[in-house]
């Protein structure tokens, strides 16, 4: 194994001369889950995209290195990056419908995605996919399997995107607000599978989230961003129990809106 599994090292990124990520550094060890939190526009998505090499051409990486398994990602060409994306570094997008092919069934594209990276037959791929999908709170996985993305709800597409990224079993998984479109029960199911993946397969996960509960439940470390700068970082316990700044406190303090005393809605 390489000395450093993943290192984001003093990276600065600008858009149009404006700094979006300002000399940010952090490490991720195998099997660790890093939560990335910060207010809107603080640079979270820009960091995630820079790791996967999917920043658009407006972005200018001014300095720094991104190291994955001894490879300097910023020096790789498109072809080399394509080989890493998906199988080595997986990605769960904020908008999964964009990541799915509109004209092929969910089942076909999951099977093909797995088989593009691994030598297993269709039946084995299907079996593995079903094992995971069954855990994601779908009403009918058989029906889901035969559906096209446009036939699914927003939350169903998001869960399919998550499953697809997880099924390739990448050593490093990037997730940009993976549960934002999900109800509480579905979100819980997804988070616990992500946690299981990191514990059982040693997957490292970098997860952008605006859900303090998710940080508490599955992350080991947390990185707090503001205006492209790291406000603080450390173990979840340390940062949650002893936040250094009011900014962090506000971000991670339980819930932004608490349950009303005037009425309580329940889905049951």
């Amino acid at each position, binding site marked *: 194994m390489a000395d450093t599994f993943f290192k984001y090292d003093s990276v600065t990124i600008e*858009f149009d001369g404006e700094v979006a990520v300002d000399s940010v550094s952090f490490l991720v060890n195998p099997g660790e889950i890093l939560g990335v939190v910060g*207010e*809107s*526009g603080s640079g979270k998505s820009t960091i995630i995209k820079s790791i996967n090499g999917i920043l*658009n051409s*407006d972005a200018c990486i001014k300095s720094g290195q991104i190291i994955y398994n001894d490879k300097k990602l910023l020096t790789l060409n498109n072809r080399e990056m394509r080989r890493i994306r998906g199988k080595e570094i997986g990605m769960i997008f*904020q*908008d999964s419908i*964009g990541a799915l092919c509109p004209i092929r*069934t969910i089942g076909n594209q999951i099977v093909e995605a797995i088989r593009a990276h691994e030598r297993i037959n269709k039946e084995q791929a299907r079996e593995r996919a079903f094992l995971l999908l069954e855990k994601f*709170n*779908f*009403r009918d996985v058989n*029906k889901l399997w*035969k*559906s*096209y993305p446009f*036939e*699914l*709800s*927003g*939350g*169903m597409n998001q*869960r399919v995107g998550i499953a697809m990224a997880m099924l390739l079993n990448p050593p490093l998984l990037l997730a940009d*607000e993976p549960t*934002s*479109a*999900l*109800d*509480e*029960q*579905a979100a819980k199911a997804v988070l616990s599978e992500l946690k299981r993946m990191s514990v059982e397969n040693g997957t490292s996960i970098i997860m952008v989230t*605006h*859900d303090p509960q998710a940080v508490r439940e599955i992350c080991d470390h947390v990185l707090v961003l503001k205006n492209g700068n790291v406000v603080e970082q450390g173990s979840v316990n340390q940062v949650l129990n002893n936040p250094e700044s009011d900014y962090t406190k*506000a*971000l991670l303090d339980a*819930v*932004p*809106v*608490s*349950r*009303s005393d*005037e*009425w*309580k*809605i*329940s*889905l049951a």
Partner: protein
Amino acid sequence: MENIISVKNISKTFHRNSGDNTVALSDVSFEVYKGEILGVVGQSGCGKSTLARILARLIKPTEGHVKTNGSIQMVFQNPIQSFDPRHTLEYSVAEGLKNKHVPKAEIEKRVSNLFNLCGLDVDLKDKYPHQVSGGQCQRAAIARALIMEPDILICDEATSALDVTVQKQIIDLLMDIKAHKDLTIIFISHNLPLVEMFCERAIILKEGKLCKIYQKKTEPIG
């Protein structure tokens, strides 16, 4: 109380390419009162967006009918994708009015008013959707809906893709707009605390059926 929408026994069955049918809504009836904020909640896949699209007449119900007493605009979950990437925010916000042949000076005035009302800085007018934050883009989406002066605004998970601080700002914005305009809001969300804070009534959908109607300060009715 005056009804602005009345939904009578609507069902929606989608016929899929695979031959499977999906009953997305079944025999749903309810009323929307003029001027209220009605929450629509339920688990992922329960039929919320299908209902929204039927109310906005983007799709037809398989059975039943909807009587609407006013114009409707919608705000969607992913603000950035709901804008055309080739146009500036100002262009997109004004677009609906151009199609209605409103004079240019009037359009400019209304765009400025709405940027103001929605808490958008004037220098954001020339920006493209990917150049602004999700929260700013959602404000622009609300401005784009309101410029058509609808009687009814449907927000389909309009705050779900935003971080919590911004969610609160968008709710505050909607409340502020509500105080200035005669507007009925249908607020679709899976965030129960947010619905409790923002809405006055809420309908709960479960697997396509209306299973409960809640009213603030009372036990479930219906």
